[in-house]
């Protein structure tokens, strides 16, 4: 059963309720609710910041300003304004859409984005639940998001959306494989799937030094998994208009948008954890180090997006099966040999 390990506070909280004779489930539910609210709040703030940041980065790369009006200094409140606008917008469900699936799809996507945050170690002890299968858990959960995308694409009853969903399915199935295999190398080195243990194993040396190939493979797959340029073919606006979420508007669209950025943060946080030594770093507090590294990776993702053109579907598959998979396997083989040789 799931239980919270974050220090004495929670245990004392439980004890308090036991003392009052209230059923055990009540305090646990309260704790769950609080944790989930904190995560949602965190996701929202991070996603809004990321959206604003991306608009700024893209604008400056393109020799323009980006949002400048809302909120004074460089339009910092633009994301909030957009969010409020989307919240207030009319919720449109196409007449011929598959209603229950249409409504369920953004929830599935968001739930997947939310659940992945459970095992991200923001600092020593700053983790919701240190699962001993942490990395595997993240990968498993992130594959749920694809299901949501397919549901959205299918239920919209729109050919573009269905094409986007088809592409997304193919993409997800292909890129899951090199993603998992590229992560096995660092896991071998650390000897554990738990995220905190992996960070602790990088006490002396970041794994990016030992596993540069794995890092590149993972990062490429991560970009593909989050459907971002150059791999954003499920929503390629010049071909499929907006792909799977073409029929979504208002709040549901905002959820998709939020989930996309939340997923970006997740994959970058995992990369930080596995390859960049997690929260480790001199002088600054651990959580700040963690965020700094993660945001650097996020910046690289945005930078890539505003530099490159979109690949084609068949090229996407080629990259997955003919480039990334051999690289990941090569890395895994080398790592295994080295680990065997040195132990």
């Amino acid at each position: 059963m799931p239980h919270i390990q974050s220090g004495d506070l929670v245990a004392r909280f439980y004890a308090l309720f036991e003392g009052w004779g209230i059923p055990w489930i009540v305090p646990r539910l309260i704790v769950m609710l609080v944790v989930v609210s904190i995560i949602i709040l965190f996701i929202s703030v991070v996603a809004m910041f990321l959206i604003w940041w991306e608009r700024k980065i893209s604008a400056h790369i393109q020799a323009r300003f980006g949002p400048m009006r809302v909120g004074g200094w460089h339009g910092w409140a633009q994301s909030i304004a957009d969010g409020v606008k989307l919240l207030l917008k009319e919720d449109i469900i196409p007449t011929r859409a598959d209603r229950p699936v249409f409504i369920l799809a953004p929830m599935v996507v968001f739930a997947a984005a939310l659940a992945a945050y459970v095992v991200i170690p923001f600092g020593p002890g700053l983790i919701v639940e240190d699962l001993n299968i942490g990395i595997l858990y993240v990968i498993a959960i992130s594959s749920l998001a694809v299901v949501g995308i397919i549901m959205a694409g299918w239920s919209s009853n729109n050919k573009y959306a269905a094409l986007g969903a088809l592409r997304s399915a193919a993409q997800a199935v292909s890129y899951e494989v090199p993603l998992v295999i590229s992560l096995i190398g660092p896991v071998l080195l650390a000897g554990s799937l738990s995220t905190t243990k992996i960070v602790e194993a990088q006490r002396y040396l970041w794994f990016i030094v030992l596993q540069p190939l794995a890092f590149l493979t993972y990062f490429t797959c991560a970009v593909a998994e989050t459907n971002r340029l150059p791999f954003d073919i499920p929503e390629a606006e010049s071909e499929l208009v907006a792909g799977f979420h073409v029929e979504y508007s208002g709040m549901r669209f905002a959820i998709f948008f939020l989930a996309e950025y939340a997923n970006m943060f997740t994959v970058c946080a995992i990369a930080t954890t596995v390859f960049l030594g997690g929260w480790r770093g001199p002088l600054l507090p651990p959580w700040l180090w963690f965020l700094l590294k993660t945001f650097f990776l996020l910046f690289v993702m945005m930078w890539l997006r505003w530099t490159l053109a979109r690949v084609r579907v068949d090229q996407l598959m080629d990259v997955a099966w003919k480039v990334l998979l051999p690289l990941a396997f090569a890395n895994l083989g080398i790592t295994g040999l080295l680990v065997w040789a040195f132990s």
Partner: protein
Amino acid sequence: MTTVNLHLQQVKEQTGESMEEMWVNMGPQHPSTHGVLRLLIKLDGEVVRECIPYMGYMHRCHEKIGENRAYVQIIPYTDRLDYLASMYNNWAYCLACERLMGIQIPERAEYLRVLIGELQRIASHLIWLGTFGLDLGNFTLFMWCFREREMVLDLFEAVSGQRLNYSFMRIGGLALDVPEGWLGDVKAFLQWFKPRLPEYDRLSTDNIIWQKRIQGVGILKPEDAVSYACSGPVLRGSGIRWDLRKNDPYGIYDRFEFDIPVGTSGDVWDRFWVRRQEIDQSVRIVEQALKDIPPGPVLAPVAKKLRAPVGDIYSRVESPRGELGDYIIADGSEKPYRYKVRAPTFVNLSALPVMLPGYLVADAVAVLGSVDIVLCEVDR
């Protein structure tokens, strides 16, 4: 509405439809049809099997308007054909009228026309490069190209007062001489512009994704290109060295030294590469024109009420998009009896159903981008 979709229904009934093989409407509202073009595409999975273009959403009956206006009044309407190369449309129309009426225009006007026309070609190709980048998913290139294009527009605005629909040329020359110091501005612009081209190349020509995306797709064989009477970069991309500026020189193009870039295989890459090279060549022509532009008047003495002698003419120029022809029949009055525009993109677009089948949807976007259509010109 029901009758309008009759053809679509017939098409669907004849071929049947399933998810594996389906008809997709690309457009009329679609980000990469460059306007309101509707492509009915038969998809087999992701592969395009058939393509039926529908257009006319922007039809304004340009030719009917032309039949009801005096010769000089048509000039502002020609701007609205290919609104990305208005100067060239002006030129084509004015040239046709001048040939019809036998008017000789002054030397300075000839030079200025070449200068402005080539600047227009640069602007037009820049916008094409940018939107082509957009089709391939590169938004940054789009913005960069637009920045330089805006500078060309600034130059044109200083000349004509307008940024898009200049109506600057007149039958017999130009409406006005260029302002003082303008030629220096053009020089300064070229100085700024030339180092920008390698920057575009970094994002496009040299980039592996860009190369892989457009090499070997949308092949138009030379015999098809001739049969469909393609012109401009589409024809040259297919490996046919044909440029009206060299092969049927109009104006004073025979005085300038420039190359005709030619592709080899006729794929999207070749068409891209030809246009990319043409920007360089246009820069060359502008520099030459700047060097030996003579002083003098810019408008030949023409009558206020222009009347063309009875007769007809098919006059053609090499606009940025290909052979822009004007077929004018004059009946001696001050209005043309028949005025037909042979729009280059209308003709180039008719080769699209030949280019698309067998490639992916993503390629369809690239191929359509490489044809470089302007829907206002297609529909007229």
